[in-house]
């Protein structure tokens, strides 16, 4: 409070000569630089305060980390020694993870495209429909992937199918958010011109907005595929198929040599996909 008061007071005194000086012609005098530094300071203090409060509440204890290091050393030694002979047994799960990611991505991005046009202010003139779609999508997006997976495992049973359903819903939320926001930011000239030729909103969006959003759509599809590889390893932990299920198995039996191999495999896939996606994006968006 005192900081704010001081800042405002100083700005007031500094402003006086330029604004009230009788000799200054309107607009010709250089303006004084606005004093906004105190605002940043306040914001920084607030953020720092919240961080410290969170750390205390969670009970961050760096000492414990060092104490437990001795217990962990055995595990760590095993983890840096992956057992490559286990590789053939991981292949089916590895393939399943990739397959789940691909199917999940394909289904979700196809469904997401029309919904995105529905969820963007730029392409949907009906504010009631817009509100409904946005609300539903916010709910869909707020559920984490692991929760979707647990839900489908309960309903459908363990296996890759549950995993695919979980991924589809998880992706849908992300994809609709990203694409509808991309649509919001587009130049709407072509759409206006289409509407002026007597086209319906549907036709105008198809003809003028779809080509404009297409590169973003493809690039986000690759991003979602990348997310899915990562997510499909995690959702397996609750029984939704793929490498995650294998991780859960070897972890239960403390087979850290095997676990480290699986982690290494995931790393390789993600790095490969990252290279592929950055290459594809570079070619798409010029």
């Amino acid at each position, binding site marked *: 409070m005192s900081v704010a008061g001081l800042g405002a007071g100083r700005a007031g005194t500094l402003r006086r000569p330029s604004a009230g000086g009788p000799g200054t012609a309107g607009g010709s005098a250089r303006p004084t630089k606005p004093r906004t530094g105190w605002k940043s300071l306040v914001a920084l203090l607030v953020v720092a305060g919240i961080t410290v409060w969170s750390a205390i509440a969670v009970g961050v204890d760096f000492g414990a980390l060092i104490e437990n290091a001795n217990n962990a050393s055995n595990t760590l030694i095993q983890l840096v020694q992956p057992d490559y002979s286990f590789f053939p047994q991981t292949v089916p799960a590895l393939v399943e993870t990739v397959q789940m990611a691909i199917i999940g991505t394909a289904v979700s991005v196809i469904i997401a495209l029309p919904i995105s046009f529905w969820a963007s202010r730029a392409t949907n003139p009906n504010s009631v429909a817009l509100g409904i779609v946005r609300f539903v999508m916010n709910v869909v997006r707020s559920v984490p992937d692991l929760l979707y997976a647990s839900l489908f495992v309960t309903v459908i049973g363990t296996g890759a199918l549950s995993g695919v359903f979980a991924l589809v819903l998880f992706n849908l939320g992300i994809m609709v958010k990203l694409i509808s926001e991309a649509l919001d930011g587009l130049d709407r000239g*072509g759409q206006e011109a289409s509407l*002026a*030729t*007597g*086209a319906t909103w549907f036709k105008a969006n198809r003809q003028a*907005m779809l080509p404009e959003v*297409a590169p973003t759509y493809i690039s986000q599809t690759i991003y979602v595929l990348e997310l899915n590889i990562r997510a499909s390893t995690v959702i397996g932990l609750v029984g939704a198929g793929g490498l995650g299920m294998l991780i859960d198995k070897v972890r239960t039996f403390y087979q850290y040599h095997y676990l480290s191999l699986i982690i290494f495999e995931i790393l390789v896939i993600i790095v490969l996909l990252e290279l592929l996606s950055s290459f594809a994006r570079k070619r798409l968006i010029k």
Partner: protein
Amino acid sequence: MNDPHSTPETSGAGIRFEHVDVTYPNGYRGLKNVNLQIAPGEMVAVVGLSGAGKSTLVRTINGLVPITSGQITVGEFGLHGLRGARLRQLRSEVGMVFQSFNLAKRTTVLNNVLMGRLHHTSAWRTLLAAWKKDDVELAMQALERVEIVQKAYANASELSGGQQQRVAIARALAQKPKVILADEPTASLDPPTSHVVMRDLQRINAELGITVVVNLHFLDLARRYGQRLVGLRSGEIVYDGQGADADESVFESIYGRSLTAEDVLPETTAELS
């Protein structure tokens, strides 16, 4: 120049403004009691300062700006309260050219011109981009008329400003319109290109008999290309007459001050004198 395929089955429609008022939602009055009669096949230039209501006037003709009271008649359509399918039908007969070209940049020139055929294309054909052969032919002819057909399969973003505006004119032509509206079509172009675009519009008006209403900021362009000149000042018509008759006192009444060098295109003054 005149290709036999596109012999004018299109001819102009008349436009009549009767006591037209436009009040925007924020209370700003765009047009005040405007009365104006435009004959079929006429070329009219609308001039005035920015904010005088030029854009509003042009945009009421195809219903992009709804009128608050009065009536506008375009051909057989009355615009007051016109909505839905009837409004789209009117719009399909009125082409529009915009200041910032309004092309979809990431698609081909041909696809942009085909926008002019959307009204006559079913939703599923639009979705699958399954254009009828006749419509593609019509689009190509429109591109030929503005002499840019060689760019048909280029992306719109690869074109210069003048080329983009000619594509926009081709799009309007592909509608087979009865009226073409142009909202400051030269404001984003350099002086020589401005003349190319204005000559295209003039030629279309003369050859096809399409009624053309064009907003212009520069007076000399208006005087040169508008058979008729309509002056607007704060939403009211303050001049309506032959472009050639508009003298110094007329411009004073439109602009509220005498003419300066800033009101004419820099290079045209040299060209004209």
